[in-house]
């Protein structure tokens, strides 16, 4: 106490001592210096390209580019949104219980189980998705079993169907759902559940009123990390889908390579961004997470 207050007091009386004391007012620009590299990176590699893309999307017709793009691709836009939503919901349904069980019942196997969740990521995205093709092709193991059980009729396959695409989207982004949920449940104080039980809550009510609300930030993060890449994805539809399953990403990817810098494609990219942004905002509102909304 005395050691810190002494220089402060002396500063008030003597200007000279202030300089000697080594106490300097915090320089106002220090924080800006610290964020400068990151800001520069964002400017060069994100803001500028985004800006030029935006300008491009308005060329040769201005805002009408957007209405053209929407009316031409309405089915694809809706489909993209629906696929990404289903994949996200499926990832929650599979991922939440998984994360919950690992966090609460994992014991000393926690890290091993988590490693298993992340393990597929040691294989490239492309190869991972291609291997599903081997798994799901018409003469392959999954289809044969489904045929013999009678779930699929003899002339039905999985490859090329919306199911294959959505299932693969779910699979590919599942770890992004599991990890943040796991972290939020894992860091929760276990005694809170004892407190809830002590205060007459059944395990189900304790989950609803304590565990679930405290894991919402993780659920929120997991949802964004799943929904955003799923909505922008083209690999799964490209490799496992068909013309029935075309997503926005496929259209952008197909055409961007060939006919460079077409305004309509820029407009479509902006559409995709807008869909995701609106989805995120609506979701944040519904969830009411203080940290993010």
């Amino acid at each position: 106490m005395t050691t810190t207050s002494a220089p402060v007091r002396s500063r008030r009386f003597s200007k000279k001592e202030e300089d000697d004391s080594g106490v300097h007012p915090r320089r106002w620009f220090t924080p800006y210096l610290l964020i400068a590299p990151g800001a520069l990176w964002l400017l060069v590699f994100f803001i500028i390209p985004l800006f030029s893309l935006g300008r491009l999307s308005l060329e040769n017709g201005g805002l009408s580019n957007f209405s053209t793009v929407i009316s031409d691709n309405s089915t694809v836009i809706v489909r993209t949104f629906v696929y990404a939503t289903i994949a996200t919901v499926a990832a929650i349904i599979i991922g939440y219980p998984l994360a919950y069980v690992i966090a609460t019942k994992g014991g000393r196997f926690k890290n091993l189980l988590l490693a298993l969740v992340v393990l597929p990521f040691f294989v490239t995205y492309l190869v991972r998705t291609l291997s599903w093709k081997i798994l799901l092709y018409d003469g392959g193991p999954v289809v044969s079993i489904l045929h013999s059980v009678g779930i699929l009729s003899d002339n039905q396959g999985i490859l090329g169907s919306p199911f294959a695409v959505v299932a693969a989207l779910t699979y590919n982004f599942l770890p992004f759902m599991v990890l943040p949920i796991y972290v939020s449940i894992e860091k929760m104080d276990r005694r809170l559940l004892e407190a809830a039980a002590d205060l007459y809550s059944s395990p189900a009510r304790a989950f609803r009123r304590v565990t679930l609300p405290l894991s919402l930030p993780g659920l929120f993060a997991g949802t964004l990390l799943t929904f955003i890449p799923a909505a922008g994805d083209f690999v799964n539809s490209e490799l496992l889908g068909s013309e029935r399953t075309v997503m926005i990403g496929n259209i952008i990817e197909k055409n961007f390579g060939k006919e460079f810098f077409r305004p309509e494609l820029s407009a479509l990219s902006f559409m995709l961004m807008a869909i995701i942004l609106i989805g995120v905002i609506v979701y944040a509102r519904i969830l009411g997470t203080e940290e993010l909304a």
Partner: protein
Amino acid sequence: MPVHRLVEGFTRGEKPEGPEGNVVTQSTMSQSTPGASGLDPQQPVIEIDHVTKSFGEFVAVDDAHFSIGQGEFFSMLGPSGCGKTTTLRMIAGFEQPTSGAIRLDGVDVSRVPPNKRDVNTVFQQYALFPHMNVYDNVAFGPRSRKATKDEIARRVPELLDIVRLGDFAARRPAQLSGGQQQRVALARALVNLPKALLLDEPLGALDLKLRHAMQFELKRIQREVGITFVYVTHDQEEALTMSDRIAVMSEGKVEQIGTPTEIYDSPASVFVAGFIGQANLWPASVTGRSGATADITALGASLKGRCQSENLRPGTDAVLMVRPERITISTNHPGPTTQGVRGTVVDLTFQGPIVRLVLHAGDDTPIIANIDPDHDLPMLRPGDTVWAAWDATAASVLPASPDQPLTATDVVDEG
């Protein structure tokens, strides 16, 4: 709903009534039944019936057997790791006894889950719900029990007033000081008017000054609501000042149960004598026995002391215990009615309210005496020979304990 009925009594500042309508307050518990310690209280709320708890091979609680009465402030006191928390957790329902039974109001609840037991816990680190404000934390219990909106809207503010947090209802736990969080935890438990409130070192995380203030607060609140408190602490001073009765525990065993005065004046074992306050503990051997008095030889003299243990028969080894403040110093023989031995002054330390005097008896056994500095004494110097004397009732003869070293125990009082 009985809880509701109790709340109304609660509002008027009355104590909940027992089945016969006679209110047993803490003062009648501790003062009108002197010497009845350890015996079962007349209206037991909690009965711990030969309860043992093992974790694998390790026995954390060993055959605990006692009951806690209606409205009582009951403490479990003992060093860290002696099984206090485990006992409390068994009462709350978080652990199940390996053997034995726990009864609440006469009903065996040993296998009843915590949410179906009418007791509430104030956790060591409070365990407040971080995502709820103070009001919702306190309302958590009543909402679980499906209390009506009116009831909750009346009771929660009432409790917040009792713990003096009326203005903090909208705050989150993270926005409160440690002492305030502690009081939220208390209100959250008390709002349910449980049969007993279980407190696990509730003041342990507070600084000294706040701890003293909260000891006073807790007593006030307990008096106000009249609910049985089961209080776990390792702080002997806290237990002595707050409790109606204390159970002293050591290594999973209950060593002694009694009022603070009984525990302090007539410890049942060397452990209890040494753990609570300061004590001179001298090796002794029993030469005769008549009722609650034993004749012994100790410090090279023939002495007498009070003796509770049946096992101390003539010829057995024992320990003589005298509190340092019960010893008086004189230059002459103290007379035939008091006990006394001669000793040589070794050291004198002024400690504010007392002077601490160390003597050596004839056989070099140290004798510690705390004496009043105003006491009319000639100047003492190391090397002087004096008489150390005490009343026979101040001397306790205890069973010798193989694992308890016999040095004059000096429990440093953290207060």
